[in-house]
């Protein structure tokens, strides 16, 4: 290959190397890759501050029942129990509500209703958690107390509000999943003489199963991670609720609420401080696991445009 050959080519209108573009494209690459860095940084800084939790406290004590930071007792069991209870309650409420609402929107609602309901659900997604927490505190808790609970600030109060907070996610993902079920399946069932409900129950829902499972997973993730509502309305009692019929109507304390409530008052670098970061590490790992699982369930389908054809 000869240099002479290149010289015979017509001169370029533009400079051959566009440094400006190279720099911009470099920045774009950096921005894309920075997301990995950010996740890594989050984990690193959580570890940096929270690692003593797992090194300095014997595991048996760490997962013990007693959370008395002032006496140096950092048993996470009660906090885990609180989070578990509130999350489970929220999921039990939100999943059927969300899926059924998605069914209503997708299969029954006339178009004019859909046009009102969808923005309304978007509005719900937009209400700040602190506002819902505030409402739970001033309005819902008294109602629950009047209904006979010893206090209005209970696991159930938190679960109910968290359930509504998770609804927009669950509804929109389930709706997508229902929408993706081919019309042919519905036609096939209806043509045999199945009722609409039989069609939904026996054909549409089973076919939309994986999408609905993902909706549930992400709903769980949201409920575990929510802080302000949990802080304001679950009663902030760091103990394992007594097992019984009223288990949901006792005050509890979640992991997130513990961090929010106590971080402001601890000395930086103290063991208590580390433990709060340690709880952060647990939350990070739990949500990471849930998200990875949800992603796995999608089976690597991506929304990417196929670029095989021109």
């Amino acid at each position, binding site marked *: *290959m000869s240099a002479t*050959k*290149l010289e*015979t*080519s*017509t001169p*370029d*209108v*533009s400079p*051959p190397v566009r440094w400006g573009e190279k720099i911009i494209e470099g920045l774009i690459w950096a921005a894309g890759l920075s997301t990995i860095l950010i996740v890594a940084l989050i984990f690193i800084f959580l570890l940096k501050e929270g690692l003593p939790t797992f090194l300095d406290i014997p595991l048996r004590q760490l997962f013990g029942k007693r959370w008395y930071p002032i006496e140096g007792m950092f048993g996470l069991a009660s906090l885990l129990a609180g989070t578990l209870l509130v999350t489970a309650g929220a999921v039990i409420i939100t999943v059927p509500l969300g899926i059924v609402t998605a069914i209503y929107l997708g299969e029954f609602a006339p178009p004019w209703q859909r046009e009102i309901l969808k923005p309304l659900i978007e509005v719900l997604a937009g209400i700040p958690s602190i506002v819902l927490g505030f409402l739970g505190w001033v309005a819902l808790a008294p109602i629950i107390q009047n209904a006979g609970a010893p206090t209005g600030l209970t696991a159930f109060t938190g679960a109910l509000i968290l359930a509504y907070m998770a609804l927009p996610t669950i509804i929109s993902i389930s709706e997508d999943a229902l929408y993706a079920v081919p019309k042919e399946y519905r036609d096939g069932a209806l043509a045999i003489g199945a009722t609409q409900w039989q069609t939904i129950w026996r054909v549409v829902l089973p076919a939309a199963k994986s999408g609905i499972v993902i909706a549930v997973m992400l709903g769980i993730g949201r409920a575990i991670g929510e802080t302000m509502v949990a802080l304001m309305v679950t009663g902030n009692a760091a103990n394992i609720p007594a097992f019984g019929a009223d288990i949901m109507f006792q005050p509890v304390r979640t992991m997130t609420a513990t961090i929010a409530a106590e971080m402001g008052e601890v000395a930086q670098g103290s063991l208590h401080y580390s433990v709060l970061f340690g709880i952060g590490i647990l939350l990070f790992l739990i949500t990471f696991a849930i998200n990875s699982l949800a992603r796995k369930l999608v089976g690597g389908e991506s929304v990417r445009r196929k*670029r*095989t054809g*021109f």
Partner: protein
Amino acid sequence: MTNDKIAVNNLFFTYPDGTEALSNVSLNIAANQIFVLFGPARSGKTTLLRLLNRLSDLLEGARHQGDILFNGESVFRRNANVIELRRKISMVFAIPTPLPGSIRQNLTYGLRMAGIKDKVLHEARVETSLQQAGLWDEVKDRLDTSAFALSGGQKQRLCIARSLALEPEVLVLDNPTSGLDPLSTAVVEESLYDLKEQYTIVMVPHSVQQGARVADVAAFMLGGELVEVCTADKMFMNPQDQRTEDYITGRFG
């Protein structure tokens, strides 16, 4: 080294999914003629067109072997200026594809991207290219209106004009009349005869009949292979290969 504008030498092309789109294709395209590339669907015509100016680069993971020489130089050479190549070998697509914006903005897009800011030059090119594409009289009073407001046939002539505004050496037309009615098709074909005085034209026709109408030289492709290439008269009157004859007479495809 020949006097050919474009020389395709033993070209193979494989799609990212492993299917072979072109198999050992060799042909030469001389300057100032209309070279027609025809054959049934999926015979590799469009793929070959898109290799000429390396739009094939957009197919991530595709592979090629062999070479294409443009003015005697490989378009695949290591330091080839692909941007410049695409200005010299300009392409018009099957579906009319105006860019969002006015007629004028469409026509000057290539120039502006080349860094040419001279407004006088812009104006001159807008007028010449529209005239060459036979569109000037219809749009000269509304150059600043949206290109999407044009009819299908006008859109396609706008796309031809947009390529011409770059003063390319080769005009590549991929089934440019596919969406057009017979009248618009005739207008586009008409403008091609005039254009070959100045440009080399490589075209995939809409039909065998169109190919026969416009071609100086024709090449018949089938299943990624070049079956035969010869002058249009010979090709459409007296093809050498049985498959060509079967296709031209409508026995398959």
